[in-house]
């Protein structure tokens, strides 16, 4: 199976690899796994408490090229978005952007799950109710 040019690009030059300080209240951490293949992905966001804009995003993924590319793209996309906007990113958008083949769709699902997990961790830390954010959308 050949990877698309975009996957190869993200794999060779992953954006935003790294770690944010987990203990800060502004940082949300999502750690998720893909049971299909045993890949693990950590995605972190730093949210501006005033504007709810995601100002920084970092990831670290242990897995295949598609999983790395999906999480790299996810960090690019969430940056500059508000928390509510970031929740609208769908795995199918990632599939389309990276031209992922059917057997790699679960990598995009993993990236979407990671975004959601990071946001939900941030909300928990900051006492933002899940329902409140839904109403704000």
């Amino acid at each position, binding site marked *: 199976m050949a990877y698309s040019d975009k996957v190869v690009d993200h794999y060779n030059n992953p954006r935003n690899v790294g770690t944010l300080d987990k203990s800060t209240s502004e940082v949300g951490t999502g750690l998720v*796994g893909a049971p299909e293949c*045993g890949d693990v992905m950590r995605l972190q966001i730093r949210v501006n408490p005033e504007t709810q804009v995601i100002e920084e995003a970092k990831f670290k993924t242990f897995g295949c090229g598609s999983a790395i590319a999906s999480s790299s793209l996810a960090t690019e996309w969430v940056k500059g978005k508000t928390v509510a906007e970031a929740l609208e990113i769908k795995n199918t958008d990632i599939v389309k952007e990276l031209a992922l083949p059917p057997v790699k769709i679960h990598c995009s699902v993993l990236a979407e799950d990671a975004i959601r997990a990071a946001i939900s961790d941030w909300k928990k830390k900051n006492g933002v109710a899940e329902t409140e954010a839904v109403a704000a959308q």
Partner: protein
Amino acid sequence: MADCAQCGVALQGSPLICGGCGAVQPVAATDYFAVLGLERRLGLDGAAVEREFHRLSRRLHPDRFARASEAEKQNSLAATALLNDAWRTLRDPVERVEYLLKLEGYAVGEEHAGKGKSAERQPPPDLLEEVFELNMQLEELRMSQRMGETADAEVVADLAAAEKRFAAMLNDVDAALVAEGARWDGGQGRAEAAARMIELLDRRRYVRNLVRDVRQSLTVTA
């Protein structure tokens, strides 16, 4: 059971070959258990199955049909390929479980892809945490290997300890798979046993990857 395409006698055991006239049968839609003349069970007598595999292999072997008709040659090739696939799959206890569950209509492993969110099937957070941390250590070790530095003794010791712990975890998972397999074979609480086996197989992929990667890195270091 179908009848022999050549002599019309009802086929017994494996549908690949006629016990009466010895004719190799055209490969029809069948499953790996049937190919080896087995019931759909997870508990197998490994030695008996292996003997049956070798017996069928010999009888189906394309060399025996070198001077047979074109159709018989084709049947022999197709039957041999199918027999090999069946044996390779069923001899491995983990692949056997995955195969049987798929055969029974359960979604297993890659089959999940894109359907249902993986969030519903996340492994316990502490396992995920540990897998992630160990991967970080592994990366550190690989990095220093690439730089030609001597590996940090503490990191190597940590990884060696982790390898033992995860290898033991893998054994536990495999033992639990056997136990659930026996429950499945017993016919009671099959749905529960299947759900539990799918969960165990999911868990197993993380642990297996990790044991493999840790072993590989430690071999390079040694």
